[in-house]
């Protein structure tokens, strides 16, 4: 009887250790999954922001203030004018930043207002 009890206690102890180890590993996996999900959501938001900014720039023939007004914290929009390859065409690089990380960038262009 005493042997059976001690065997049972030993088994319980080992099972408790195994369970604690597996919980620790699974929690790390959950944390990693949450991190990946957050970065995917950030990328989606950055793509939408950049697209909106590109369409505003094209519609207003380069109104940078109107494009910047679309930005929501914590994202940051960086607009860089690119050298034009053809007279009458304006080009701009739109970059979306979160803290110091560049999430997404795209180049867009539009006709100068006088040409329309």
């Amino acid at each position, binding site marked *: *009887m005493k042997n*059976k*009890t001690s*065997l*049972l206690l030993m*088994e*319980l102890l080992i*099972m*408790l250790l*195994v*369970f604690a180890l*597996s*919980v620790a*590993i*699974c929690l790390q*996996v*959950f944390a*990693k*999954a*949450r991190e*990946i*999900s957050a*970065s*995917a*959501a950030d*990328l*989606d938001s*950055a*793509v939408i922001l*950049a*697209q909106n900014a*590109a369409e505003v720039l094209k519609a207003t023939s380069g109104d940078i203030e109107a494009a910047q007004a679309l930005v929501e914290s914590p994202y940051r929009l960086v607009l860089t004018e690119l050298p034009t*390859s*053809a*007279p*009458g*065409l304006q*080009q701009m690089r739109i970059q979306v930043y979160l803290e110091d990380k560049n999430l*997404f960038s*795209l*180049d*867009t*262009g*539009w*006709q100068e207002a006088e*040409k329309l």
Partner: protein
Amino acid sequence: MKKQNTYHSPAIGSSSLLVIFGVLCLTVLAMLSLRTTLTEKQMAQVSAQSVSAWYQADLEAQKIYTRVQNGETVPEVVLAEDTYRYCVSISQTQTLEVAVKNEDGHWVVLRWQTVAHPEEPNDTLPVWQGTA
């Protein structure tokens, strides 16, 4: 008669079974959630790539349009019935088709459309013809 108090200890191995079941459930849940988020990340990257490709093609089309407006002869542009037509590739299955016209000195965009060209299914079956 004296009543004998018998003590029945829990069966050895029952806690092991419970813990194994719990660990299995936790592991499956963790793997499924990781798989789901990896798929989400992949979808976000494909979407970003698709948007980037479209705007790249759009910029290229704008450049060609500007060159046509400036009177340059562009090899990709076809002139038919006073209408300039050209295509810019977006991806393997999509192209941006453009048609512009000069009406009395005023340029009009007749078409600026993304057209999908789905890949043709490969319905050929390589069969041995009997020759060496």
